[in-house]
């Protein structure tokens, strides 16, 4: 039974990964990136999210490794705190309260007890780089108010600040000048680009800066695509050389660890490696998919990573080979297709990378895969009119996918293409079946499949601005050489040449509703005869949908003038109407409910209602301040059981919606922490065991244990220690082999420790695993088992003592420590 709480609007997944530079751990095993209010820890090998560090109350703006302890991580946030984390275990160690908004964080190995942050103190657009002294104190929360000013009037972005030559100076760029502050001399030098006032070179303002790790060399990126390398000898004397390959703005620069090569990236989505700082020696990694926002280098020097504008992090080997991709929900483009649910994977489907559909798992907050729809080389250039994927629809239980792409350069030049994809069970993916050029003379406004359960022939309807709607059916195209199916046009319908704006099939597929501007027409789907028309003279129809289940006799239409109409199909009359400026209208596939989101000047409101009665079931005002663009009902795997009438609409499905700023929101009664815990805990356990031959023995054993663990959690029974917590096993696995006693000696202890203790209810499962005896003997073996347990109890202690006599003193200590280990934390789970 779920506790009845208030329904809240919750941000779910799809957080940005590319807000700041990602940071590698010292051993390059993990990569950290800021993601909203959290810091995410990913494995660089498996691309899995290992931990989510939550604790900040506002956007996290910077992360850096602790230079003094590479197993710790500093993070700063807009909430005015700097937090220190143990990222291996995902534990918050300390919080330093600074008190003002922090915009970026830098650490320096030379400045041991202080970090550098960007703050804005007086005016909103003036930023300062200050150093914060972190007091040494044992308490969890420490006030750190000791700020010392370093540089004034700098850029807000951390890309414009760089520390160089082992912390001798800090370089900052803004607009047309580069300022360098020397810590020892405490002086600031300014270098201005000589041609900055020259109007011809107006585009050479600085965009980013990077410092050579060991030499007095600063690289700066510019708007016009040039990279300048500054070598300075003292305050006044300097020279610079120019590297030019990018034709658009340089987005980020990074030196390799040794400083021999410089990495740069920009809108071309090509990573360029400049060797020896010369224009001739350069290597490329092209076609990275989207604009490179950030580049970072691992401290060990073996990996690079690039963050991209399509919410993606690519981990790249030293030899410029991409090795892993961490992909979040792609959000940098406008969503034309709306939100859809793939009936097979239950994944959320929407526009992804240019020309792709992305399949995004809501449960794991992870992109499952990208389907390349347009299949053409993407030219990343400013001002180009791209082919846009405008419509998509799933049909026949996920067996078919229809997509529409268009490109309109001028009013009269429209390129339109419809593609139909068939799901292939062998390859587990969609395969292009039919391509239709110019299915209509004008833009396609709506697309829907007939999803009736007993329809013998897949049917698709497209409505277009050219005043026609077309019915496409799947026909047999096979001959003696091959078996094939293809789609052909079956019927073309129109109504007084009005633009067709929406189309919708009834639940059983017997009726088709097509709206022509203000008029709704109902067609028989067998004979394609016009049955009747509805018109309310209340503006163009914006949304159209049939009621479902018991309400299938109703047809709902929302108009542009803010009227929601419900027609009864049996009496062919208006049942009711309401004044509601509907922006999104979505029927729930599992119930009669329909969700409508209305738009007002203050914000968006949600109404859930049944078509049979005009009174809404549930109203939530002010779900979002922005315009809500799309919404979708996602069927739940496990139905919830809200008893309160107002929440019953959430029992079978969950409602997700997307606002104009592309944040994906949903309704929930649980707190976000509660939702996240199960997955993160699982990952923790999995990480702790290496995949050795032992793992395969233990892994199976542990799975059983886990099941037990869950049971015990529910029933609050006796707790079992996890395998890795059994001292004998952990000792065997973690002690170096040359100090261990002989294997024959350890064997019995090891095997005994694997046996379950007597109290567990499921002792039966062991004999089943060990020997597959007949059932008759099972009772006997039970008793036997009991017997062995007793023996084990005694022998275990005896053996233990034996070992202690023979083992070294340190190990003796260790063993004792293990005995004292408190398992009470399991109860807290």
């Amino acid at each position, binding site marked *: 039974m779920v506790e009845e709480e208030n329904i809240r609007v919750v941000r779910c997944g799809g957080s940005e990964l590319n807000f700041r530079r990602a940071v590698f751990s010292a051993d390059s095993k993990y990569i950290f990136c800021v993601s909203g209010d959290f810091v995410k820890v990913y494995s660089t090998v498996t691309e899995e999210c290992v931990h989510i560090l939550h604790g900040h109350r506002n956007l996290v703006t910077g992360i850096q490794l602790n230079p003094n302890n590479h197993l710790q991580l500093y993070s700063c946030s807009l909430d005015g705190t700097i937090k220190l984390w143990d990222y291996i275990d995902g534990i918050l160690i300390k919080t330093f309260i600074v008190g003002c908004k922090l915009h970026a964080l830098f650490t320096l190995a030379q400045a041991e007890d202080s970090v550098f942050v960007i703050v804005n103190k007086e005016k909103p657009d003036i930023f300062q780089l200050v150093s914060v002294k972190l007091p040494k104190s044992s308490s969890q929360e420490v006030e750190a108010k000791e700020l010392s000013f370093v540089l004034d009037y700098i850029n807000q972005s951390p890309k414009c600040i760089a520390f160089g030559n082992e912390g001798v100076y800090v370089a900052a760029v803004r607009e047309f000048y580069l300022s360098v502050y020397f810590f020892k001399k405490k002086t600031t030098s300014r270098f201005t680009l000589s041609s900055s006032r020259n109007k011809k070179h107006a585009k050479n303002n600085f965009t980013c800066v990077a410092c050579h790790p060991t030499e007095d060399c600063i690289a700066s990126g510019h708007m016009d695509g040039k990279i300048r390398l500054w070598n300075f000898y003292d305050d006044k004397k300097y020279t610079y050389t120019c590297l030019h390959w990018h034709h658009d703005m340089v987005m980020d620069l990074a030196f390799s660890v040794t400083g021999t090569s410089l990495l740069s990236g920009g809108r071309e989505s090509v990573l360029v490696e400049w060797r020896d700082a010369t224009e001739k020696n350069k290597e490329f990694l092209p076609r990275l998919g989207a604009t490179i926002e950030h580049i970072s280098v691992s401290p060990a020097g073996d990996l690079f990573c690039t963050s991209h504008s399509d919410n993606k992090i690519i981990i790249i080997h030293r030899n410029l080979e991409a090795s892993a991709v961490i992909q979040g929900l792609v959000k940098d483009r406008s969503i034309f297709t709306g939100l859809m649910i793939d009936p097979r994977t239950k994944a959320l489907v929407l526009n992804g990378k240019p020309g792709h559909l992305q399949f995004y798992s809501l449960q794991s907050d992870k992109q499952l895969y990208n389907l390349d729809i347009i299949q053409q*080389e993407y030219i990343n250039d400013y001002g*180009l009119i791209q082919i846009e994927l405008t419509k998509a629809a799933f049909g026949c239980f996920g067996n078919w996918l229809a997509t529409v792409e268009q490109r309109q350069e001028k009013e009269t030049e429209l390129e339109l293409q419809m593609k139909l994809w068939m799901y292939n069970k062998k390859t587990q993916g969609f395969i292009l079946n039919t391509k239709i050029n110019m299915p209509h003379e004008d833009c396609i406004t709506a697309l829907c499949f007939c999803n009736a359960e007993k329809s013998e022939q897949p049917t698709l309807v497209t409505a277009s601005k050219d005043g026609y709607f077309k019915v496409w059916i799947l026909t047999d195209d096979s*001959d003696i050489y091959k078996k094939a199916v293809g789609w052909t046009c079956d019927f073309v319908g129109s109504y007084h040449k009005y633009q067709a704006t929406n189309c919708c099939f009834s639940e059983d597929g017997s009726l088709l509703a097509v709206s022509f501007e203000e008029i709704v027409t109902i067609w028989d789907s067998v004979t394609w005869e016009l049955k009747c028309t509805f018109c309310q003279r209340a503006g163009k129809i914006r949304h159209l949908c049939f009621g479902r289940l018991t309400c299938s006799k109703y047809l709902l239409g929302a108009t542009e003038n803010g009227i929601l109409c419900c027609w009864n199909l049996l009496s062919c009359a208006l049942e009711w109407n309401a004044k509601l400026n509907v922006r999104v209208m979505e029927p729930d596939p599992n119930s009669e409910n329909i969700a409508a989101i209305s738009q007002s000047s203050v914000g968006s409101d949600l109404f859930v209602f049944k078509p049979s009665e005009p009174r809404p079931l549930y109203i939530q005002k002010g779900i979002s301040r922005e315009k809500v663009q799309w919404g979708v009902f996602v069927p739940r795997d496990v139905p919830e059981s809200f008893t309160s009438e107002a929440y019953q609409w959430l029992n079978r499905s969950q409602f997700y919606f997307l606002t104009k700023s592309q944040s994906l929101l949903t309704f929930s009664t649980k707190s976000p922490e509660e939702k996240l815990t199960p997955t993160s805990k699982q990952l923790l356990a999995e990480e702790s065991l290496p995949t050795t031959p032992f793992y395969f023995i233990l892994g199976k054993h542990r799975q059983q244990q886990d099941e037990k663990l869950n049971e015990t959690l529910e029933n609050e029974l006796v707790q079992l220690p996890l395998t890795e917590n059994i001292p004998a096993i952990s000792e065997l696995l973690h002690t170096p082999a040359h100090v261990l006693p002989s294997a024959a000696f350890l064997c019995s202890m090891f095997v005994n420790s694997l046996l379950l203790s007597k109290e567990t209810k499921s002792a039966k499962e062991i004999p089943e695993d060990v020997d597959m005896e007949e059932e008759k003997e099972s009772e006997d073996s039970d008793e036997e088992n009991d017997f062995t347990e007793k023996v084990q109890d005694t022998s275990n202690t005896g053996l233990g003592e034996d070992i202690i006599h023979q083992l070294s003193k340190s190990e003796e200590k260790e063993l004792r420590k293990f005995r004292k280990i408190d398992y009470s934390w399991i109860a807290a789970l």
Partner: protein
Amino acid sequence: MAGYKPVAIQTYPILGEKITQDTLYWNNYKTPVQIKEFGAVSKVDFSPQPPYNYAVTASSRIHIYGRYSQEPIKTFSRFKDTAYCATFRQDGRLLVAGSEDGGVQLFDISGRAPLRQFEGHTKAVHTVDFTADKYHVVSGADDYTVKLWDIPNSKEILTFKEHSDYVRCGCASKLNPDLFITGSYDHTVKMFDARTSESVLSVEHGQPVESVLLFPSGGLLVSAGRYVKVWDMLKGGQLLVSLKNHHKTVTCLCLSSSGQRLLSGSLDRKVKVYSTTSYKVVHSFDYAASILSLALAHEDETIVVGMTNGILSVKHRKSEAKKESLPRRRRPAYRTFIKGKNYMKQRDDILINRPAKKHLELYDRDLKHFRISKALDRVLDPTCTIKTPEITVSIIKELNRRGVLANALAGRDEKEISHVLNFLIRNLSQPRFAPVLINAAEIIIDIYLPVIGQSPVVDKKFLLLQGLVEKEIDYQRELLETLGMMDMLFATMRRKEGTSVLEHTSDGFPENKKIES
């Protein structure tokens, strides 16, 4: 990350016949050789033995033609009246023929006078055949009888009088020396066994039977009258399928050498090729006159068709050895390709596969490296523009999508610009290319307007283009007028009011082409 995606070349549906392996196979014949005979060619038969000569029965003569000879290499003309059904024996050394006067004559290929004459039929003998043991001859005549003759002593062995109308076709089993089949105008096909004195099987065809054919295995029987029907002999003569693809009487049947295809010739002047697995028509030939006889040479090397107007059409297969004559570049030896492929993985080895290299067309390689003008030059090459104009159009479209079409078209000299204009003139009026090419034409005019009048060649091309566009606009106007008229007619014919359901009228392409030149 992902590799370069090649330019999508727009494919257009090929109107008319689909290209299949069958159409390729059956179209791979040279233009037919026409030979004029004295009368309607009632039978063509190939000798089963090399050099695969064929006997043509027309009027009162039998001509033997060699494979490539246009003149008969031998003629049998000792017939008083029309000869019928000259058929070779399995060894190709004897020939038997029936005649209008009821006689059956046996010839030696090397001789001239008949070796044997079988007298016994009272009316015209339209069908004769050798049995599988080579020593007997079966004949069917218009006196409703079927007779079996012994060759050595030229005697009649058996007579079957079961048919009730003319017996016009027949054939002997190739496996069993005692079995043979005849078809008659009494609508039946009967199978006779020489060991018994009556028919062992009879099937009702439904129409007068003009031709019968037994499959080499003897399991299937094909009979042709108005329709072609296939019978399963092993199920006791059950109808397997009825082929109603001809719209006149089918006069002759023939199997391809592989046994996979069945050919039928008909009075509707068509030869149809069926697949013997699905019995669907896979190909069809057209001829000038009604077809009476049809034969295929060994390995389908030659198709010979005889027609009612006395024309014999002979088609030879194109020889495939021709391509070999070109001097071939020396390719790497086979062993270079398999180098390392047969290496067995050892225990500690880690196998690393080299990623397969994707083949890119030359224009794609240029586009990959952003050499736009070069890519355009490549596809404006005459071989490409004439053979595959859709590739040229697709590249122009791609350049336009990349926003560099004007750059690629600019800076061309007289020769190069005339290449482009030639292509435009040739293809501008094609509906499938028009949207892309009109745009390109506009860009060219914009670019080269300042230099117009400097080159008479280019000016001429521009004038030609202008004329073409004007003509096309007139044509479109006429089409629209016609469409208007048709709309009016449809409107008067329609009974229902209120809805305008338009069933797929092809409305040309109502695009207004405006090119100012």
